[in-house]
């Protein structure tokens, strides 16, 4: 029972690629066979974030065009057994593959892996349509900003139109202190607008900047708050009802969070 999940957001820079890398690594750490597909053709980043850029020989476009076999393009992660990457091409653009080719590719990957996680490009044009073409489930990432939430709402509508109903929400880069002061949208505000199930909340964390620049993930880092948040998301994907963690000792918030995930 494999599944194909697309990670998308509409807006750029909210953390799609970082979330894809960390969720994939987290699943691999727990012994699952995972492939991450970089659908951001022409602006690939997932390989850099995973520190695998120098291993790329063939890419997704080569596979789609039959220049190589799928197995030749797959890169095994250097740290996590079971984690694989199908890199995007950098010298092409989104029109280099069609939604139909992506559907075929996803079907083939689904036979080989338990989790196929597709990192969508920003935007809602062909790159987005390619990314969602072969997906069965969707994770929408947003940050607590009006513009990001607006774009997430737009994307949820487009996902529904593509018959990807019931997407899950990840709120990234939350700053609990600012929420407490009323200077940042809180989780309830965002859920009120988007009205989809919450998969997790990731606090702003300096560890992320360091790790992504080094080509590493944070999900294995026991000291990182974001790493903990990603581990919780991974457990929830696996069906474990992990409560949302207490961000920065906020009393009262945790109770509300619990209710939001149906645990209170």
């Amino acid at each position: 029972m494999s599944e194909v999940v697309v990670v998308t957001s509409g807006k750029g820079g909210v953390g799609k690629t970082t979330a894809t890398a960390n969720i994939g690594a987290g699943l691999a750490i727990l012994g699952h066979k995972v492939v991450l597909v970089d659908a951001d053709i022409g602006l690939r980043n997932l390989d850099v974030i995973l520190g695998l850029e120098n291993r790329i020989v063939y890419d997704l476009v080569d596979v789609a065009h039959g220049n190589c076999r799928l197995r030749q393009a797959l890169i095994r992660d250097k740290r996590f057994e079971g984690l694989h990457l199908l890199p995007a091409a950098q010298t092409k653009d989104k029109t280099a593959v069609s939604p139909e080719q992506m559907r075929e590719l996803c079907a083939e990957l689904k036979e080989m892996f338990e989790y196929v996680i597709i990192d969508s490009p920003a935007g809602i044009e062909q790159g987005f349509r390619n990314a969602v073409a072969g997906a069965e489930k969707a994770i929408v990432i947003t940050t607590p900003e009006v513009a990001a939430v607006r774009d997430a709402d737009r994307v949820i509508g487009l996902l529904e139109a593509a018959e990807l109903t019931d997407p899950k929400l990840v709120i990234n880069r939350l700053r609990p202190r600012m929420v407490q002061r009323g200077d940042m949208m809180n989780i309830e505000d965002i859920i009120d607008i988007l009205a989809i199930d919450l998969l997790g909340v990731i606090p702003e964390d300096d560890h992320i900047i360091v790790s992504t620049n080094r080509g590493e993930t944070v999900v294995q880092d026991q000291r990182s708050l974001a790493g903990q948040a990603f581990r919780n998301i991974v457990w929830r994907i696996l069906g474990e009802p992990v409560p949302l963690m207490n961000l920065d000792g906020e009393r009262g918030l945790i109770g509300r969070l619990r209710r939001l995930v149906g645990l209170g």
Partner: protein
Amino acid sequence: MAVQNIIKEAAERKTVLVQRTLRSGQQMSYDGNVVILGDVNPGAHVAATGDVIVMGILRGTVHAGASGDDEAVVIAFRLRPTQLRIAGHIARPPDQDANNPNQPEIARVKDGVVVIEAFPPGGERQTKM
């Protein structure tokens, strides 16, 4: 290996001069030698059937001898490639302990592996006052 020999062999092929920096996503391929008067950034891709000379910093991916010439070489003012390919050989820098000398270097195939050496040979000595 004498510098003269490299130049002589290179002269048997056509050579193209690229007077700009190649940025991420830009690629070029050429049937002959390529000389780049600029940098090759990460994500850029250069393929040549002959030699590739970068008069700048090579940070991207270069494929010399792309049609199978094992004798092809890659020379750069600073050789920091994402990946180096010569004919059918593919090399990448080590994940740790990258030794990055501040001098021009040459990459070529020796005994079936890609090796990197100072360029010109004994170039370190020439910098002595």
